[in-house]
């Protein structure tokens, strides 16, 4: 044991000495930044007592539960729940616990309000996924044990809020009941559970709060059925929407007697047509319904009497009611108008008077108000003040108080769909760098401080000053291109359809635009952004134009809905072109061709497999037609387990539109559905640069099989497609394929017995690395496959190369039968992996590192050398010189090689690397719920001096040397003179 520990230690030392690219503590934040987000807020709960009153608890679509500071919007604490653990409801119990119900009502957790620690967790047995309800009785008289009621399907649970123990559980006798509402009577310890059986029957249970006993049960049915939406108006009255969504049914169930009364909406609102929704809000004696054009507040005066209380025009939003006193409840309305956003607060018993009316001015790029949450506070003059939390269309979150936006958070960045890096404008003449370095004295002072720091002479105050200078060094935040290519714009598109440009220096938002094409409208019901491409990158021609970015979206998930295109100036964020396509978007292919204005050609494949060329200019068609015979594309149909390859056909048959081309199926690979199922694919990056074609080993030269058309596909046996552990090792099998996408040729097929997904893979140069689970070894594994070209293997003779008798420059055709050799090796890896990426540098000389997003939401940089199939237990001397690491069965995880150092990129989804101009350096942008950016040098910065290089020391040395030269020269002169006189 001790020996093993010693071995580990020596190994660690060895690795540290050779590979460490870790940061020093004071280098944190110099080149990297980290931004924390929470995502679009679904629920918010304010707390009014003690310290809680400065906070708001929110839960979001990204499954985050967070506590935010009401004054600044900062995060006190937050938890990112699992991908499938959607938060259904949030509430506060006992004044100190935040209760969350998640995973369709099956997990109930309590978090400590001040610090976010989990207090307890209860797993509830919910038979079928159904509508779940969380009900925390608010004002139970003192002395009672506070119970939390949770209902899902036909069962009701009561849990103690202190420790999460189930106090009672009631399985309602009718199995198919869907409980809609739980309410509580004022007088007694009775709760009412209201539900539907089937679509037309209505059931009310009176249940004892203490024991869960059913005290009374009453039933009634309604002819035209219910659609399932209800709103609780009083404790003993609910209003439901009928099956046709055309009328409201008021149901009273006082004392076990059910009264039903139907009111047609068209009777209440004569101009009503179309769809209606009930807004989930608890008003006393009122309900809010949402018809397409406006929100209507209805007052319920009795079972038989509904009347329109107020009509609010769209776009607008309304809050739930907030009890102010025993009789009064307040609610807020936000309405858009030409002059801005009107914010009104009213009491529910007097709708004519506005308690508060304010007008706000909000950035138009934030869209409409989607949701608001109201909170009250006591002003200094002892009156009630109100503030609201506003969720906008771009998923941003703001707090509005006293007619002002106190803070806002750009939480749309938690759901980035696609990203790309863009160059900044070239520095114009007249803008000099010296502006930054105020004067020579300041500059010298700064370097003198740094010198002191390196010589360990600086006091703590001076160290702080050094750190401040470093962090402030505004060099990195300038809006111009730099020599090393570190300063760039990261342009991202979020799920809300907002495009933002972030500066790589400090991560600030340079510009943002909510794309009009991706906003909900009549034509495009549920738009979503698909991806982002470089549309125009001027370098040779059209130098004066700004580069632009193409955003492709679609109106919904369905493949026959039309797509949308937007082109945005990447310097200013101006939308240059925005259009709704006539065809759907199934697949987008950026071509390696540009037209005369440097616009990149794109092919969009629609649902009928027609290819549409963009930009639609005659120039681009001309260029495209020349290259058309050499354009191939493929499509992976994951559901059908088929991969098909296509070519394009000339448009003879399609004369009506010269930008539309027919496609022809060239090849297909059909995976037998009983034994294989596609679970992962990976391709090489389009713009990857490979520096050397050959790998020179001690006694041999191996030529890499470098093809841009390599596709990696992983399939598993269908039984093993589920979670780990769902299949026995004997029935699980993973197949890895390398496929040439031009000819559909399977270059390599390998099976891993007893292995299963999830598979994460990365393809680069001539290798692929993939990560999977080995059921036999009960561990995760990473495999590497390197593929070498044997047809060029005999070009080893130097004379052949000198005399030009080699076939290295001959064009390689995919139709030639490849003669490849494959080397592979597998290693154990401790972590499960969220995403794998590989560094890319400008010229591809620098050695590569794999960037592995671990389960702990950190990014680990692992040298590709560890994943070399040529590693052997005892490498020969020449192999050692080559840098081959002795074979180990598992891959090392060195804590210092986490590029995220101590930070966590919560909910990590994707890691993007872009080369900087400096060959040694790559820029890394990771996103998930959080954003993280850094730059890494896999082989260290061998081509530049480090930032903390002390120029002052160099200068001093030179000065001292020059002085010494003069002194010694003078001395020797003197001596010589003296000798001559002698």
């Amino acid at each position, binding site marked *: 044991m001790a*020996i093993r520990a010693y071995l580990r230690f020596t190994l660690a030392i060895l690795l540290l000495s050779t590979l460490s690219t870790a940061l020093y503590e004071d280098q944190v934040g110099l080149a990297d930044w980290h931004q924390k987000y929470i995502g679009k807020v679904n629920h918010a709960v304010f707390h009014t007592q003690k310290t809680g009153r400065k906070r708001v608890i929110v839960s979001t679509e990204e499954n985050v539960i967070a506590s935010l500071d009401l004054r600044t919007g900062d995060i006190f604490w937050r938890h990112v729940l699992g991908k499938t653990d959607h938060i259904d409801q949030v509430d506060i119990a006992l004044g100190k616990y935040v209760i969350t119900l998640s995973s369709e009502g099956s997990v109930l957790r309590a978090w400590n309000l001040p610090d976010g620690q989990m207090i307890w967790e209860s797993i509830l047995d919910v038979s079928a996924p159904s509508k779940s309800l969380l009900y925390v009785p608010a004002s139970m008289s003192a002395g009672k044990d506070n119970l939390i009621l949770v209902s899902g399907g036909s069962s009701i649970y009561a849990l103690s809020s202190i420790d999460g123990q189930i106090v009672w559980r009631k399985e309602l006798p009718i199995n198919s009941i869907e409980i809609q509402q739980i309410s509580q009577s004022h007088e007694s310890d009775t709760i009412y559970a209201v539900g539907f059986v089937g679509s037309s029957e209505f059931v009310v249970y009176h249940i004892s709060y203490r024991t869960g006993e059913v005290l009374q049960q009453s039933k009634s049915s309604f002819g035209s059925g219910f659609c399932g939406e209800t709103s609780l108006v009083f404790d003993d009255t609910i209003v439901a929407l009928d099956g046709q969504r055309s009328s409201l049914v008021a149901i009273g169930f006082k004392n076990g007697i059910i009264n039903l009364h139907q009111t047609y909406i068209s009777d209440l609102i004569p101009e009503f047509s179309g769809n209606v929704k009930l807004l989930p809000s608890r008003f006393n004696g009122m309900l809010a319904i949402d018809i397409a054009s406006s929100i209507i507040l209805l007052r319920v005066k009795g079972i038989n009497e509904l009347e329109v209380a107020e009509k609010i025009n769209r776009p607008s939003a309304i809050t739930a009611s907030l009890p102010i006193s025993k009789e009064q409840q307040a609610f807020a309305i936000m309405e858009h108008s030409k002059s801005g956003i009107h914010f009104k607060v009213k009491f529910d018993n007097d709708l004519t008077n506005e308690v508060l009316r304010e007008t706000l001015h909000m950035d138009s790029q934030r869209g409409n108000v989607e949701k608001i949450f109201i909170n009250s506070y006591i002003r200094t003059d002892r009156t009630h003040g109100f503030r609201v939390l506003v969720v906008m269309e771009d998923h941003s979150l703001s707090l509005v108080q006293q007619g002002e936006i106190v803070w806002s958070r750009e939480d749309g960045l938690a759901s980035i769909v696609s990203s790309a890096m863009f160059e900044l404008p070239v520095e114009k003449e007249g803008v000099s760098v010296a502006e930054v370095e105020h004067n020579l004295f300041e500059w010298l002072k700064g370097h003198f401080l740094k010198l002191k720091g390196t010589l360990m002479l600086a006091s703590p105050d001076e160290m702080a000053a050094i750190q401040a200078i470093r962090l402030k060094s505004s060099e990195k935040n300038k809006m111009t291109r730099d020599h090393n290519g570190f300063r760039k714009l990261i342009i991202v598109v979020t799920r809300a359809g907002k495009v933002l440009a972030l500066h790589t220096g400090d991560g600030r938002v340079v510009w943002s635009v909510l794309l009009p094409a991706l906003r909900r409208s009549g034509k495009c019901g549920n738009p979503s952004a698909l991806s982002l491409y470089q549309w125009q990158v001027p370098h040779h021609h059209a130098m004066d134009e700004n580069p632009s970015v193409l955003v492709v979206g679609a109106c919904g998930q369905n493949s026959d809905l039309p797509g949308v295109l937007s082109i945005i100036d990447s310097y200013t964020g101006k939308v240059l072109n925005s259009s709704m396509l006539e065809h759907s978007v199934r697949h987008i292919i950026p071509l390696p061709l540009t037209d005369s204005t440097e616009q990149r050609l794109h092919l969009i494949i629609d649902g009928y497999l027609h290819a549409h060329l963009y930009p639609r200019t005659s120039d681009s068609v001309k260029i495209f037609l020349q290259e058309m015979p050499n354009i191939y594309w493929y499509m992976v149909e994951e559901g059908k387990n088929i991969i098909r390859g296509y070519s394009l056909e000339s448009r003879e048959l399609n004369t009506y539109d010269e930008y539309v081309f027919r496609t022809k199926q060239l*090849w297909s*690979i059909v*995976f*037998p559905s009983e034994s294989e199922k596609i679970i992962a694919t990976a391709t090489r990056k389009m713009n990857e640069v490979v520096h050397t074609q050959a790998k020179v080993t001690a006694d041999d030269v191996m030529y890499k099989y470098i093809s841009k058309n390599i596709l990696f596909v992983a399939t598993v046996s269908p039984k093993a497609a589920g979670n780990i552990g769902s299949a026995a090792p004997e029935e699980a099998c993973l197949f890895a394929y390398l496929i040439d996408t031009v000819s559909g040729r*399977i270059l390599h097929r390998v*099976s891993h017995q007893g292995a299963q997904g999830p598979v994460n893979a990365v393809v680069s140069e001539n290798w692929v690395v993939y990560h999977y689970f080995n059921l036999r070894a009960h561990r995760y594994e990473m495999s590497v496959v390197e593929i070498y070209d044997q047809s060029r293997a005999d070009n080893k003779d130097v004379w052949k190369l000198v005399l030009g008798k080699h076939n290295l420059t001959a064009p390689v055709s995919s139709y030639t039968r490849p003669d490849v050799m494959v080397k592979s*090796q597998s290693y154990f890896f401790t972590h499960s992996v969220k995403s794998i990426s590989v560094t890319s540098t400008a010229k591809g000389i620098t050695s590569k590192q794999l960037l592995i997003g671990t389960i702990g939401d950190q990014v680990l940089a692992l040298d590709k050398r560890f994943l070399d199939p040529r590693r052997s237990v005892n490498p020969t001397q020449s192999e050692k010189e080559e840098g081959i690491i002795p074979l180990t069965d598992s891959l090392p995880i060195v804590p210092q090689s986490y590029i995220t150092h101590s930070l966590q990129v919560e909910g990590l989804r994707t890691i993007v690397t872009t080369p900087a101009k400096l060959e040694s350096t790559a820029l890394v942008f990771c996103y998930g719920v959080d954003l993280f950016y850094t730059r890494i040098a896999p082989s260290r910065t061998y081509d530049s001096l480090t930032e903390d290089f002390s120029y002052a020391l160099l200068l001093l040395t030179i000065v001292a040397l020059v002085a010494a030269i003069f002194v010694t020269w003078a001395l020797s002169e003197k001596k010589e003179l003296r000798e001559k006189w002698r």
Partner: protein
Amino acid sequence: MNRTGSLTIQTLIAIAFWFTWHSRNEQDHLVKQHSHNNLMMKILAFSSRIFNTRDPKGPNYSKTLMTTQIKWIPQRWILLKSIVMALGIICMQDLASLKYGSLMVRFKVRIKPAWPTAIRGQIEVMQLSKVSIAVLRTETREMAKGSRRARSLALFFLFTLHLISIAAGFQSDELLQDDEEFGLEGGRPAADPELSSLARPAIRRRPDLDLPSGSSDSKSIQFSLEHQLGSSGFLLAGTFTARLKSWSNGGQTLTKLRFSRNTLTEEEKGAFERLLKEDGYYTIRVPSNVLNPPGKDYVISSVRARCIPRESLDEHFTIHTDGVNILAVNYGSAGACHYPRLLRIPAKWSFNSYTVLKNSEQAPRTPTFAEELLAVDVGTEGVQPPERSFWAKYWMYLIPLVFIVLNAVTQAMNMPEEQAAGQSAQGQQVAQRAPSANARRR
């Protein structure tokens, strides 16, 4: 051929084991180590287990994997033994995996009159997809000629058994990578150099050794190849014939693929020429399931028509299968197809077809180490250098120091010359003994 003995594996292994066990007690330097014996015991136990699970109904198609000649040279025994030792662990693991991988082992040893100076062994390893049968058949001529020879023979068998298990462990990977069966039809089957290079030269097929192959669970099936010339529909172009073998565990595999091409009609020739002129695609398809075509869908492959013509029309099929399912067909020219594709009209309008059937290849196992062993190795290496280096580094300082000290001592004590010399010699001895003591401690 004086006498030919044929023994079953149990008896042979029993004999072999007995001999080995006893020879250890007597004189044999080959089998010294205890661990080796343990290993052999395990192998024996395992092979008998395999034998017991033999399925009498199982079909017995075999394939020669490896035919080697082993010369009887005493030095090589030691070499072989060391290989066996080194790969012992891996060997055991691979044997364990045989349960899943399945293997049929048959080897045959023919002993020449010149034995024991030269012994010719022929090892055949047969790979079946899911059956585990081991058969050992020997042809000895001098089996009863003396206990010494017989013992050596038995030892030889044991080693070959080791070798085979090793070879099987590695070979199973190799085998699947290569084409399981070749079927050549149409044109000049032997003339193609590329194809013969695909076949492993060491493989020799020995049909006479096949166990009765006419078992009922192998049947012949046919499936058709269709082609498309230009924009017309798919037309029948030829027929593949293959044998479908069913294994006792329910698996089925295709082997012995043969292909017969229909001759091109005049119409098709015209279409093909048109394709050649416009550099179009020649597309073929086969059903994805050969039992109930077209299965899920057709498997399609295309090539530029200009890649095909050489003297005649040369085509090459690589069919990737998984049981009875065809995953993909890679269709192309038999040779290279360089990019500026030139128009070439073939002299002969007939196809030369080469077909290759490919199965899946198994991934190499993740290396697992006995970490302790490694740790001990590295650990001792790690400790050694400082121990050695102290003297190695500082001897040049220490010796003069000793001299100086001795000098000083002698001068101070003002002693006679001889005594001092004696003392210094003693000191030197001590100084020189030190490193050797260190060395011994290692």
